[in-house]
């Protein structure tokens, strides 16, 4: 597991039913591209997050496939509909098999 991986997500605490909200997500990860070389000229092996999924009460909002060209600390901003109160789940899948998860609850105002 890559060290110091910390997901950060910004979701409004409350929303009106059916409202479209903006979600920002960021996870600290070095996203080693597999293109770089170390001081001795050896290629540093690729180690990236290859998939990011956001779902609300089990229904998919967005499912992103990432390649090596996504920057360090992958950031995503997107919009989601909130039909009812519930939980947003955010899942990041690492190349090494690790899965990082984060959950945010939204109440109906």
């Amino acid at each position: 597991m890559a060290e110091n991986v910390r997901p950060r997500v910004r979701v409004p605490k409350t929303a009106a039913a059916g409202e479209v909200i903006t979600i920002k997500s960021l996870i600290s990860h070095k996203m080693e591209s597999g293109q770089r070389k170390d001081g001795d000229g050896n290629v540093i092996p690729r180690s990236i997050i290859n998939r990011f999924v956001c779902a609300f009460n089990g229904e998919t909002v967005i499912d992103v496939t990432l390649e090596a060209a996504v920057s360090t600390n992958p950031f995503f901003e997107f919009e989601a509909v909130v039909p009812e109160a519930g939980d947003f789940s955010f899942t990041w899948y690492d190349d090494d098999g690790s899965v990082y998860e984060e959950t945010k609850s939204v109440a109906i105002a």
Partner: protein
Amino acid sequence: MAFTRRKMLILGSASFATATLVGLPAFASLTDDAIIAITGGAETSDAGITLTAPEIAENGNTVPVEVSAPGATSIALFASGNPTPSVATFNFGPLAGSQTGATRIRLAKTQDVVAIATMPDGSFLRASVTVKVTIGGCGG
């Protein structure tokens, strides 16, 4: 046949020209191949898709891009000048508030960023923006 100096020069420049001609299309087709893999070679239209990227990026390591294509089922991003052109693919689920995604990407050099949106009716939209990069973002 004896090789004179003149003949050698002609031969040399001819082989150089061939190498450049062969080299260029092979380089450009990496992105085209990736796009054809999605569209199957179908025609793409320009209307209904917006790709926002800075005109000049000082640091190729983090270039903010935003893409929006109302109604699309998925949007794929490509960087034509990177060693591997694929950047990211956004697949929108039933609860997506809008078919918009923003992220930060790496660009190796000045190049075109291309977005291909897949529509539910099987058509494709394409948008492209040229980004000037001062410092490349792929190590080296």
